[in-house]
């Protein structure tokens, strides 16, 4: 099918953990792209079309909320679903993420089943 996912997190280890969870959740993406922050993610999205984006919230340079805001203003990518991955974002931040177009959120720690329940329907 050639599905592509973009994982945005400032920790490369966390990106690996998310990659492992996707695999265990039975979500077989052909291509897994990574970015360390929102700025890098926007650069990646200039050249690559992806099916879904999984994004951390707290990141340097450009955080997950600002990334959502910028992405919403770019016609070519604004329809790509974004799932926020967070440890402790308050309801207010998640509400803001929703209002900026986030398709959902996953709270750490998460099981492969939770990953598959939330991401599965979107890809």
């Amino acid at each position, binding site marked *: 099918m050639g599905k592509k996912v973009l994982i945005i997190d*400032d920790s490369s280890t966390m990106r690996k953990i998310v990659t492992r969870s996707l695999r265990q959740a039975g979500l077989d993406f052909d291509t897994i792209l990574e970015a*360390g922050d929102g700025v890098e993610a926007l650069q990646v999205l200039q050249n690559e079309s992806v099916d879904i984006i999984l994004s951390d*919230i*707290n*990141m*340097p*340079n450009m*955080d*997950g*909320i*600002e990334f959502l805001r910028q992405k919403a203003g770019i016609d070519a990518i604004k329809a790509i679903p974004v799932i926020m991955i967070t440890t402790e974002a308050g309801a207010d*931040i998640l509400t*803001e993420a929703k209002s900026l177009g986030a398709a959902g959120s996953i709270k750490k720690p998460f099981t492969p089943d939770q990953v598959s329940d939330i991401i599965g329907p979107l890809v």
Partner: protein
Amino acid sequence: MDWEQHVIDATTEVFSTMLMMEVTPELPRLETIEPFDHSITGMVGMAGQYKGMLAIHACDQVAMAITSNFLGLEVDSLNDDVKDAFGELANMLAGSIKAYLSDNSRDIQLSIPSAVCGQNYSIDFHPHRRSTMVPFTSAEGTFLVELQLEHQS
């Protein structure tokens, strides 16, 4: 984001007022650093609108000399005074940086400080990511002040 100047201002201020020590900032470290050898690290967490961690690292000899100035008494071993002093220094540096970042003191809150010491240990340092590590020289020797910080949405 560039926090370097905050680190320099806070350290210069805390050392000149509390320790009567003149310290000179050197160029920030941009590479990962070697494990600390017979050293001590005082650290404190920062939470709230900005989240982060402030740490001050020094080798045992420099740490004892700094503590002597800080407490106004001779310190010749790495005793509880040195560990408490380094926790407290981290606390004061973070408190001072906190004041530069926000006028409202409730926006950023500090955790309690602690000190790590040992013959050999390393602490994660991510240059180019969200960490600033500035070396300072003084009459007592060199020490490092590290700030990891991120602004919350």
